[in-house]
């Protein structure tokens, strides 16, 4: 079975380490915050200028001056800091954020990512994504492995305009967890019940399959 959005978030959350500053993109990456492992403290960075993003406010806590980069209302956790956009992107572009998690339309075996523009469709903009992928050492892309029609999104070369070049080193799809290294995808784990053959079939880029590819496990 392909992973659900919640399972994808759970799997990504296992990559969190105590003391990490983390930027979570919109969509599945946002859900990662719900699965921070017990005993681990992470500080969430929101690129509109908040380090230490907390939960959504209660009705009483609502404050129109407190939003996150997705323009949702949020709170600041104890120990949070608030600053300007230039300061925020200095953190991002200066490589101070430990982990960035974001979505993508396509990634390729060279670590290129396309996530912001489909020619011919309405283009809303890249927001902070280009800064995030250029600035972070450590990026996990969350995405579906193939389109609804079965076309692979893990490619030899991205077909869509890029968000960043050679910057992605880890990908979690609904079928597999992979690393990108030396011009190839390396299959590290597979979703429960998903065969290596299916992953091979749905990966258009160069794929290295080790002898043993463990199946991910999830608590009920």
């Amino acid at each position: 079975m392909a992973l659900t959005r919640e399972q994808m978030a759970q799997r990504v959350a296992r990559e969190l380490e105590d003391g990490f500053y983390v930027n979570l993109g919109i969509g599945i990456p946002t859900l990662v915050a719900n699965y921070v492992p017990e005993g681990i403290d992470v500080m969430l960075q929101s690129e509109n200028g908040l380090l230490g993003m907390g939960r959504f406010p209660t009705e009483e806590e609502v404050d129109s001056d407190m939003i996150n980069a997705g323009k949702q209302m949020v709170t600041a956790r104890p120990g949070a800091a608030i600053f300007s956009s230039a300061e925020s992107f200095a953190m991002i572009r200066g490589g101070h954020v430990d982990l960035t998690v974001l979505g993508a339309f396509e990634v390729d075996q060279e670590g290129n990512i396309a996530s912001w523009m489909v020619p011919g469709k309405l283009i809303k903009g890249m927001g902070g994504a280009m800064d995030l992928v250029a600035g972070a050492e450590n990026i996990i892309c969350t995405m579906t492995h193939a389109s609804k029609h079965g076309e692979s999104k893990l490619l030899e070369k991205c077909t869509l305009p890029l968000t960043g070049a050679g910057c992605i080193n880890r990908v979690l799809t609904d079928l597999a967890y992979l690393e990108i290294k030396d011009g190839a995808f390396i299959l590290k784990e597979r979703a429960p019940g998903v065969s290596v053959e299916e992953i091979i079939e749905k990966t258009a880029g160069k794929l290295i399959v080790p002898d043993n590819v463990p199946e991910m496990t999830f608590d009920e």
Partner: protein
Amino acid sequence: MAGFDKRVSSYEEAMEGIKDGMTVIAGGFGLCGIPENLIAEIKRRGVKDLSVVSNNCGVDGFGLGLLLEDRQISKIFASYVGENAMFEQQMLNDEIDVVLTPQGTLAEKMRAGGAGIPAFYTATGYGTPIGDGKEVREFNGRHYILEEAITGDFAIVKGWKADRYGNVMYRHTAQNFNPMAATAGKITVVEVEEIVEPGELEPSQIHTPGIYVDRIIQGSFEKRIEKRTVRS
């Protein structure tokens, strides 16, 4: 106005001198921390052919979205747009020139503009359509593109508290692009929720020192919420 007293008494006075074809840099992120009354005054004046520099372009009927109604904006530098139907329509009809700019690059363009730095190198956008046609240089084995600074004829800024000298503090995430915008205008206009006596703001807590600010006005704000997310 006398000496360092930057206060003006009306929004009309606050935007005095804005003309067709000017570049306006606006603070704000989404609808948070936007100079909503200064934008409304620009609408009232009906100036056209503006170049606007702002992270977003408001929503239909509010914020910078107001300036779309009478087609006052001919060009916009922004990182994310199209939350509003009118913007989408004008973009598809080629009535508005959209220069999509990565968010960090946009912030840095304003910061550099205000700091007298004409251009800077950044890795952001290298190898993407944003880097097309821009100078590339390699530093320590990595590629960077040259991005030019932005300055404006006007900067419009939303602050929380200010004194009459133009020292400004922002509140929470309503800070966002406002401090950089404030540095990058030939004329910088700041609207705030409260003007306090000099000395009431702790000097080390001031975000925007008065040297950047030309005009200060106290207003009242709707502060519209874009996405109401609450937990029970």
